[in-house]
């Protein structure tokens, strides 16, 4: 799944998005509430918070390598 703000885009691999334990973990670590747990228990991205991303890498550290990608749209789509 992918969600886009003006400055930041967030991509999560479909397999990872379905991982309920990971969904809970991402929700906990993100300081600006980009991640949430849907009623199904799966991961949900909160559109209005995408541009609040502070580039802290906590989500990257919490997920298996490559599962979460943070993209800086203002920097030629550079990946964090």
């Amino acid at each position: 799944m992918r969600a886009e703000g003006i400055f930041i885009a967030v991509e999560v691999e479909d397999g990872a998005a379905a991982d309920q334990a990971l969904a809970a973990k991402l929700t906990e670590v993100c300081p600006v509430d980009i991640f949430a747990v849907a009623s199904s228990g799966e991961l949900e991205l909160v559109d209005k918070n995408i541009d609040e991303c502070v580039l802290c890498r906590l989500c990257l550290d919490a997920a298996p390598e490559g599962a979460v990608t943070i993209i800086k749209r203002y920097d030629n789509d550079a990946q964090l």
Partner: protein
Amino acid sequence: MRFYEYEAREIVRRAGIPVTEFGFATTPEEAKAAAEKIDGPSVVKSQVLSGGRMKAGGVQFADTPDEAAAHTVDVLKIEIGGQMPRGVLVDTKAEVEQEYYAGVVWDGTAKQPVIIFSPVGGIDIEQVAEEQPDKVGRRHISNLRPLTGFEAKEVIASTGVTGSELNKLVPIVTKLAQLFIDNDMTLAEINPIGRLADGSFIALDAHMDMENEARGRHKKLLAELGVGDDETREAREPTAFELAGEAVDSEDHRGVAGNVTEFDGNLGLVIGAGGGSLTLFDAVRAHGGKPANYCEIGGNPSVSKTCGLAKLVLQKPGVDKIAVMMSIVSNTRVDIVARGVIKACLELGMDPSEKIAIFRIPGAWEDEGFKILDAYGVEYADRSVSMHEAAKRAVEKIGAGS
């Protein structure tokens, strides 16, 4: 926060200091009822926060309750210092033999409250201090030791007052100092204290200011006086634009993006922090610019809060461009502010490179911030460009564009 006279009088009364019979009225009927209670000549006084009431016609004398009611109709119509009166205070017209002054204020240099007393009351104490300095006594009081009374005695005696006068004034001045301490006042003043024909003393007018930071611990008193939580009691009432700024700032708890004050120029300002905003506002004016507003960002506000503030300023009628400037930041992040102001432009259908005259915020995360500004073609400056130089560039741009 300033109190109206009728509230200040009530605070004085509660402190156990004798006051004349008085009532607060917002209609002629209420004024008449209050005057009837007084049973004798009365004074109708406009209730505004500024001075100069007498000159403006806001103080009228009445011999009968009907006359007091008639004066109330007139006084309520007079604007004083840009403010319509909240009501009138109907007061006893006391026959006094002598007027005295007593006040307590903070001395920021000594870091203690200072009691000021003069046997020359009823006029501005600063005038007395200038013309008859030996008639003004001052004494600091301890912040840690409780007041016992000798402090007031010393200050009164130092002005040459003695005898029963001294002994009757000591408890009044002590109670005034105590109420200053108990209520976190920044000013507590009774001017004048009147000596009546029978030798007794009575408070005739009072001014009180409570420290804003301490309002939270005097909720009970404020509620009893009917002071609303939303009453700022600043020298001027907040405008709709300023209230909208407050609403933006209270949107979320992260950082500050507010403290907005409205001006009537064409250059919108998104500036910070405390000292930086003061410096930048001066700098814009020094270069002939006309600011549309004052504001402060700081404490690393969210993108959405910065965006909300920038939108408010961008949409203010008469604003051509905004200047986004701060002193070097170490807590607030350059990239977050850049995102906020660019987002505001885009969401309003404006071109950031056109609307943002200059972006001068050096410091934390500046490399990331400058990348964002580059991507949208916004002119920016790093710390090698002074705050004044940045302000000058913004003023030049707006001059060239209009």
